[in-house]
């Protein structure tokens, strides 16, 4: 590598400038705004110290949103990971029509969250939706067979309207989109798995489960780390689905931090308060960003 002074600058000036202005500066500026009472409209604002944070930690909506984010992460990490890995293992060998099967699982991945949110909002709709319609038809069949059931009851289930169901209904739609991504990464990872070790294990009489547990899975560890980090980051970014399907309602039962922040900042014009929520979200993310960076650093030293 040559040692220049100006050449790197001439290449970096534009991209770096843009990045500093639109990504790096805003990150720090939000941290400053979090200590002000800016309303988004007034040209000036006052320094209010930790007031926003004090209010935030006493805000029930905040704790509710945080708890929902934790639920989201818990579901988002386990289900897509287990399904994606299983599918990758199943489709890693010669399977007929594997292209069709893969496409089926990949498809939701290219859809906008808004599209997914609307399609699932339809699926959950009490009268016109897929789920209640299916329940209604099943109950009708049962009724005609002489069972004492009331099909009309199926149409009263408000998947998105019931505070106890709304959050889980939204979360259930998310893995539909995410499984394909996890599967792609594991399929790529499986290509790098040392087959000699697998053969040796087979000769030694290891069971398929043992082979997976002690040979394949450990070799997939780098992929697993990436999948976990990306999945958590994605969960914390969860906004579109919630905003489209319920706006966080009913009664904040399906609120998440990203949506809470947007509503406070852009609907209620509490920009300073919104900034404080963003800072908390950022602090939660930092740990996971650090894990990712650590891996990148390791890769550099190899």
């Amino acid at each position, binding site marked *: 590598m040559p040692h*220049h002074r100006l050449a790197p600058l001439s290449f970096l000036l534009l991209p770096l400038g843009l*990045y500093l202005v639109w*990504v790096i500066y805003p990150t720090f500026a939000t941290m400053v705004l979090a200590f002000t009472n800016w309303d988004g409209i007034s040209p000036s604002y006052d320094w209010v110290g930790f007031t926003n944070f004090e209010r935030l930690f006493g805000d029930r909506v905040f704790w509710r949103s945080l708890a929902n984010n934790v639920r989201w992460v818990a579901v988002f990490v386990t289900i897509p990971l287990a399904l994606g890995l299983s599918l990758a293992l199943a489709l890693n060998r010669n399977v007929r029509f594997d292209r069709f099967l893969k496409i089926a699982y990949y498809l939701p991945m290219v859809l906008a969250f*808004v599209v997914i949110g609307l399609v699932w909002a339809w699926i959950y709709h009490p009268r016109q939706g897929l789920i209640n319609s299916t329940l209604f038809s099943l109950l009708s069949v049962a009724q005609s067979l002489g069972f004492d059931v009331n099909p009309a009851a199926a149409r009263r289930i408000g998947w998105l309207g019931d505070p106890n169901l709304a959050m889980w209904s939204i979360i259930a739609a998310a893995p539909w989109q995410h499984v394909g991504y996890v599967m792609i990464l594991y399929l790529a990872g499986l290509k790098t798995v040392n087959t000699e070790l697998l053969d040796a294990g087979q000769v030694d009489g290891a069971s398929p489960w043992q082979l997976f547990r002690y040979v394949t899975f450990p070799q997939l560890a780098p992929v697993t780390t990436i999948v976990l980090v990306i999945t958590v980051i994605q969960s914390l970014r969860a906004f579109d689905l919630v905003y489209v399907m319920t706006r966080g309602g009913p009664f904040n039962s399906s609120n998440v931090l990203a949506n809470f922040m947007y509503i406070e900042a852009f609907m209620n014009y509490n920009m300073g308060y919104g900034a404080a929520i963003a800072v908390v979200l950022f602090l939660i993310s930092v740990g996971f960003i650090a894990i990712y960076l650590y891996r990148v650093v390791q890769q550099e030293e190899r």
Partner: protein
Amino acid sequence: MRRLVLILVWAGALLWLFPIAGAFVTSLRTQQDISANGFWSVPREISFDNYSQAWERGRVNRYLVNSFIITIPSIIGMLTLSSMSAYALVRFRFRLNRFLYFMFVAGMLLPFQILMLPVFQLSNRLGLYDTHLALILFHTAFQLGFCTFVLRNFLRTVPVSLFESAVIDGASEWTIYRRIGLPLILPAFAALATLEFTWVFNDYLWALVLLSSDRLKPVTAGLSTLMGQFVNDWPLIVSGSLLAAVPTLLVFFALQRYFIEGLTMGATKG
């Protein structure tokens, strides 16, 4: 055992396709029909009327054009600029090299909320609020993190001697970048462009933050307007959603290989 696995994989695949297939069937029916008889009934009539309604009265035609107006320049911008930053990070030794690289990587994982308010403020001050340019600039800038990350790691696999021979010939760095760097990056461009197309095209949050005029909205934001316009007419809303998905679906089917390559490049070579 093997057979059971296959049956499960097939059942799962059909289950996975079901929401889209079901949405498509619903989009061909009328709201009255679906409300009265439910999904599992023989449609009384089949028509593409919902699509033409969503397309014209729901203005999906206009919104889709906006999406392209935002997406295409963003992609050109981010690929051009990230090829420059990646080239600089791979080709030159300077003090902040590693630091800048890590900064680009960390930036791509930021929660969007930490950027929203200052980005909104900035676009207001620059007079860019409620213009497509604001979105194009922001998408370009934000995606520089991911693109630089991918392209830098891609370029690093190129043997240094390729560049050295050009230096000996007395070519300037910009000439080397254009004649040797860019052609080498080209295969990665295809993968990145495919992936970024779906990401930028599918963006909703930034369109909410940076635009207010309905006539400027991309299709994602337009769909929420459509939902308000045709309250409770789910066959029509679903039709609009499916129309909005057509471009990304087409790109995916046409360029599937690149799409997958882009995803794995970003994640496994990191």
